[in-house]
Structures are given as C-alpha cells and as structure tokens.
C-alpha cells in the first residue's frame, strides 16, 4: 500500500507544480512506482511541465465519472521508469469532482503505486478540499515572502482542522545572496514563524525556467542546483537522512569588488 502526498501552498505561483513534477521524477528515478495527479481542474499545467501535454486522451474527471478506467487515463512517462501522470480536465471546473470521489480515487491509486503525488490548486476552496481529501501526508511549498508565508500558515491551520498528519515544509526559491544581506527571510525565520518541520530548501535557479521550457524536470539535469535540492527532498521522503545542501555563498575577492563598484550578484 503506497502513500498519498498532497503538494499544497495556498498562494499560487510559489512552485507547487514544479515541486510535484520534480519530486515525482526523482522518486521514479530512485526506482519507486509513482503517479502524479493534477487536481487543478480548469487550469491544468502539470502535463506541460512534464512535457506530456500531447499524450492526453482521458483526464481525472473522465475517471471519476466512469467514462474510462483509471489505467486508460494514466499517461506513462517512458523517460523515467515507472512514472505516470493522471492529468486534470481543462474544460471543466473544480466542482466536477467532490471530496468523496477523490478519496476513492486515491484509495485505488495507492494500491498500485508506492507514491501518489497530488498537485493541489491554489486557494482554499473546493479544489483544495478535493486535493487533500485522500491524502495521507502534506508538503507545504512556501517562498520566503510575506504573502506566501501568510497563506502557508492558513493552509497549515486548515490541514490541522482536517486532522492531517503534521505537514512538512519545502522552502522554495530561496536566494542566498538576499538572505546574506538581510533582505530575505532565512530558513530559521520560516521554520520559526510556521512552526512545522522542514523537508527541504530549493534555491532560486534559472535552470527551472529552462527545464520547464523543455518539459524536462530539473532533477534530470545534473548541473541544476534546484534539481539537486529536489533529489535530496525525494530521498528524505523515502526516509533517508540527507543533510541540507550548502547554499551559503563565499564572500570572495570578486564579490567584494563587485559590491564596491556597485554591481549586485544575483
């Protein structure tokens, strides 16, 4: 029996879909059987981030309505071993599914998969309620910004109310240079405010944009810092003890020189 993990955040644009795609790919690369479920009905994107948009035949709403079997709707990603995607519907809205149906679907999926990763839509309405309905665990994605942290706090409260096991935090898009000059909250600040366990920290990294452009998750890029961070997080999910990667920047001679002449390193 597998595990259903929902990736949520409250606020949009903080990296839920990117996180789901990368963690799923990393877990599949580690040899686990993984299915990614896009619950953002009406605004599906996990398919394009994964580069599988041209292979969709059926979607989650078709499955729930009995139009097709689960297996018919699952898209196998041949690149990364045992990775599958259950896409969201694009032409319907969040009310096309209810929480009870979602619970049943998750129950079915975890019979066949080691990990069921659910990409949650932004917001706290029906889409969110559906996404968490069948989940055993939750990953909260938050960026070090006031709006994101505030929304994450609200989500943590709602998960608590839904009696969800202690959620884990992924800090996304951290910029060590800004942290260093006191212009961005650091890891400790975020943990202190949100009071939940840390699962990992992903640095801001332009390789994410590039890999999303190509439809190939950054975890497959050995030179991507963010990819490395996601690979570490995936290993922590499997229970391995992996130390946080070193994100501090050395204050070398050139950086000092750049600062002196007014150039900021970014």
């Amino acid at each position: 029996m597998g595990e259903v993990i929902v990736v949520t955040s409250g606020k949009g644009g903080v990296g839920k879909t990117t996180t789901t795609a990368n963690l799923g790919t990393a877990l599949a690369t580690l040899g686990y059987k993984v299915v990614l479920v896009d619950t953002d009905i009406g605004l599906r994107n996990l398919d394009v981030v994964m580069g599988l948009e041209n292979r969709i035949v059926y979607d989650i709403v078709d499955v729930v309505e009995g139009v097709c079997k689960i297996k018919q709707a699952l898209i196998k990603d041949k690149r990364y071993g045992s990775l599958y995607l259950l896409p969201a519907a694009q032409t319907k809205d969040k009310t096309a599914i209810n929480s009870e149906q979602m619970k049943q679907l998750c129950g079915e999926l975890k019979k066949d998969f080691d990990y069921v990763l659910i990409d949650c839509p932004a917001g706290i309405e029906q889409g969110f309620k559906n996404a968490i309905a069948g989940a055993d665990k939750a990953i909260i994605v938050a960026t070090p910004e006031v709006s994101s942290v505030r929304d994450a706090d609200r989500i943590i409260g709602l998960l608590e109310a839904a009696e969800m096991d202690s959620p884990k935090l992924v800090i996304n898009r951290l910029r060590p240079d800004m942290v260093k000059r006191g212009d961005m909250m650091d890891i400790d600040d975020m943990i202190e405010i949100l009071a939940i366990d840390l699962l990992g920290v992903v640095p801001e990294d332009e390789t994410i944009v590039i890999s999303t452009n190509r439809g190939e998750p950054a975890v497959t890029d050995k030179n991507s810092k963010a990819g490395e961070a996601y690979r570490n997080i995936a290993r922590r999910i499997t229970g391995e003890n992996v130390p946080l990667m070193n994100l501090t920047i050395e204050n070398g001679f050139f950086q000092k020189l750049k600062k002196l002449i007014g150039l900021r390193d970014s």
Partner: protein
Amino acid sequence: MDIFNKMFGKNNVSSKTVAKERLRLVLVHDRANVSPQLLETLKEELIKVISKYTEIDNSALEVSINNSEHSVVLVANIPIRVRRSMNTVC
C-alpha cells in the same frame, strides 16, 4: 556593509526583520480568526459595558491580540478616569 549602509542613508533595520514583524502581527490575527473590524466592535461594546460601572477614557482604550509564550491573549488596556473629589458611592 554597515558603513556602506550608513553612508548611503539606508535604513538600519533589514527588510527581512520588517517582514518577520509584520508577519507575526498578521498571523496572530489570522490564527485567532479575529479581524481588526471585530476588535473595533469588541472595543465599542466594552466601552458601553464598562461605562455602566465606572468612567473610562474612551479615546485611550486599546484592545489587541498578542502572542505570549505559548498562547494567544486578548489584551484590553482600559484607563479609568480618576477624580480627586470622589462622591460617596450610593
């Protein structure tokens, strides 16, 4: 860096400290599910009730939600008007 900041007249408080402080305050309200409007209503009603018993300084009355050690507390600061020549209580 400090010298540079001072030279260019930068604010000494780092923006992350400001962010943390603002978050702390807004989260206290969010978590307690108490909006500033609700506090204002509460304040008005408190004034009504307490005024029945004693004279208070309405303008200086403050009601706020604070984070103490491990709990969230509702704090009301209610200055009472004191007169030297007190009438006998009937």
